[in-house]
C-alpha cells in the first residue's frame, strides 16, 4: 500500500519536473532562436548597407584607373595590383616555411619539450596584435635590413603574422593522417621523406589549403601591420621591369586605401572598396565551402 502511494507521489514529482524542464527548454529554444536571428540580421544588414552605398560607386573606371586629380579619375586599380602582390609574396614567404615547420614538428622533432615550446610560441604569436607586427616589421625589415616602405617589407611582416596559422593548420592536418599510412609506406621501403611527399602531404592537402585560404583572408583584411611597412602607394607599376621593381616600392592594399579614404572623408570611395572587399570575402568563403565539400566527398 505504502509503496503504491510513494510510487504515485514520485510520479507526480516527476511530472512536475518534466513540465519544468519543458518550460526551460522552450525558453532556451527561444533565446537561441533570437540570438541566431540577431546574428543573421546584423550580417544581412551590414552587407546590404555596404552594398547599397558601395555599388553605385563601382563603375568600370573605378577598377581600371588610379585616383588622379589631373585626369579627374577615382580608381583602385593600383590597390588591387598591390593586394595581389602582397598576397602572393606573403604566401611565398610563409607557406614553405610554415608547412616545413609543421612537418618537422610532427614527423621529425625528437624532443617533446622543444616541440611544446615551439607550439607555445606559435600559439602566442597568433595572439599578438597586428600593429605590433607592423612596428617590428617597420623597424627590422624597413630600417635594419633597409627595405624601406615597400611591398616586400609589408609581405615579410605579414608572413611572420600568418606563419603560426599555416603551421597550425598543417600540423592539425598531419595529425589527422592515420599512423597506418606511415607504417605502411615505411614498411614498403619508402624513406621518410618519400613517405611524407607521397602520402602525408597529399592527405594533409585539404587542411593545408584551408589554412592558406584563411591566411589570404587575413592578408586582404589587414591594415595595421601594413600601414607602416608597405605604405600607401596607389600607382600602377610600369609594365616590364617595373613589375619587379614594384616589390621595392611602397604599395597600399585595398584595405589600406579604404582606411586612407575614410581618413580623408572620401566616403564614396571607401564604400566602393568596402563592397569590393565584402565580395572577396564572400567568394573566399564560398570557395572554402566548395573545396571542403569536394574533399569530404572524395575521402568518403
Amino acid at each position, binding site marked *: 500500500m505504502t509503496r503504491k502511494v510513494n510510487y504515485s507521489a514520485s510520479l507526480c514529482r516527476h511530472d512536475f519536473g518534466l513540465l519544468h524542464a519543458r518550460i526551460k527548454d522552450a525558453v532556451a529554444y527561444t533565446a537561441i532562436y533570437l540570438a541566431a536571428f540577431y546574428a543573421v540580421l546584423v550580417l544581412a544588414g551590414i552587407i546590404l548597407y555596404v552594398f547599397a552605398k558601395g555599388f553605385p560607386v563601382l563603375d568600370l573606371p573605378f577598377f581600371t584607373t588610379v585616383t588622379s586629380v589631373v585626369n579627374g579619375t577615382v580608381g583602385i586599380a593600383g590597390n588591387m595590383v598591390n593586394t595581389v602582390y602582397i598576397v602572393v609574396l606573403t604566401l611565398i614567404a610563409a607557406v614553405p616555411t610554415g608547412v616545413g615547420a609543421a612537418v618537422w614538428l610532427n614527423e621529425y622533432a*625528437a624532443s617533446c619539450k622543444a616541440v611544446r615550446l615551439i607550439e607555445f610560441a606559435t600559439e602566442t604569436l597568433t595572439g599578438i596584435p597586428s600593429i605590433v607586427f607592423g612596428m617590428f616589421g617597420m623597424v627590422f625589415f624597413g630600417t635594419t635590413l633597409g627595405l624601406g616602405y615597400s611591398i616586400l617589407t609589408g609581405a615579410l611582416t605579414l608572413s611572420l603574422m600568418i606563419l603560426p596559422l599555416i603551421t597550425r593548420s598543417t600540423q592539425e592536418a598531419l595529425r589527422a593522417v*592515420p599512423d*597506418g*599510412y606511415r*607504417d*605502411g*609506406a*615505411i*614498411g*614498403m*621501403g*619508402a*624513406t621518410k621523406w*618519400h613517405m611524407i611527399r*607521397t*602520402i602525408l602531404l*597529399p*592527405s594533409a592537402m585539404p587542411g593545408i589549403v584551408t589554412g592558406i585560404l584563411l591566411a589570404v583572408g587575413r592578408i586582404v583584411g589587414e591594415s595595421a601591420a601594413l600601414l607602416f611597412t608597405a605604405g600607401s602607394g596607389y600607382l600602377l607599376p610600369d609594365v616590364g621591369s617595373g613589375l619587379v621593381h614594384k616589390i621595392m616600392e611602397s604599395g597600399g592594399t585595398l584595405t589600406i586605401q579604404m582606411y586612407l579614404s575614410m581618413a580623408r572623408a572620401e566616403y564614396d570611395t571607401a564604400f566602393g572598396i568596402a563592397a569590393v572587399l565584402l565580395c572577396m570575402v564572400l567568394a573566399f568563403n564560398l570557395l572554402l565551402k566548395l573545396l571542403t565539400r569536394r574533399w569530404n566527398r*572524395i*575521402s*568518403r
Partner: protein
Amino acid sequence: MNGIKIETTDLNLYYGNHHALKAVTMDIRADAVTALIGPSGCGKSTFLKALNRMNDLTKGVRITGRVRLDGVDIYASGVDMTALRRRVGMVFQQPNPFPMSIYDNIAYGPRIHGEKSRARLDAVVERSLRRAAIWEETKDRLKKPAAGLSGGQQQRLCIARALAVEPEVLLMDEPTSALDPASTLKIEELLLQLKRSYTVVIVTHNMQQAARVADDTAFFLAGEVIEKGRTKRLFSGAQDTRTRDYIAGRYG
C-alpha cells in the same frame, strides 16, 4: 627440407627500461608459415617488427643480438633499409590502403624501387592482385580509390601491395583480426598458396588459425620464447605446461 630463412640469435629488445624481448633465439624456415602465438603484450608484434627493422622508428628502442636473413645480419651498419624492406614485406592488423587509387596502391612499392615503365607497372599490378586473389573484384575499378573496398578486400589489397615488390618474406601482424569470417577464410586460403613461394611469419590470437595455416609455431610469454616447433607437435603434445595451457585457452 626447407632451409633456414631467418635466424635470430640472443635477440634482446628494450623499450627504454622495459625488456620486451628476452634472448630470443629462433630459426624461421623458408617457404613455410610460422605462427607466433602468446597472450597480449608478450612481444609478438615487437619480434615481428624486429625482422624488418620497423622498430627503428620507435623512440628509445635498444636492440642486442643478431637477426640474420639468409645468413646476413640485418642490423649490421650499412644495411640499406629500402632493400631490406623490399625483401621483407609487412601486412598490418588494420588494413591500411593508402588514400589513392587501387592501381597506385599496388604500384607504390615498385615506384619506390624506381620502376617507371607504364607497361611493366600494369603487369605488376595485375600479377600482384591475382596472387592476392582480388583481381576479379578490382580489375574494373583500378582507378577508383582503394578506400571504396570492403575491409576484407582492403586487407587482400594490402597483401597484393606487399607482394608487388617481390618480397621473400611476408610478415603479418594479426592480418585477419579486424575481418569477418568469410574474409578471414579467403586470406587463410591465400596464405596456403603463398607459402609455396614466400616465407610467411604470422602473428595470431586464433589457435584454430595457427593450426590451419602454420607449419611451425612459436609460443611467446613475457618476451621469451617458451616453446617452438612443428605446429602439429605443439598442438598435440606441447612439452611445457604453459604452452599446453595457452593452446587449450586457459591463459589470458
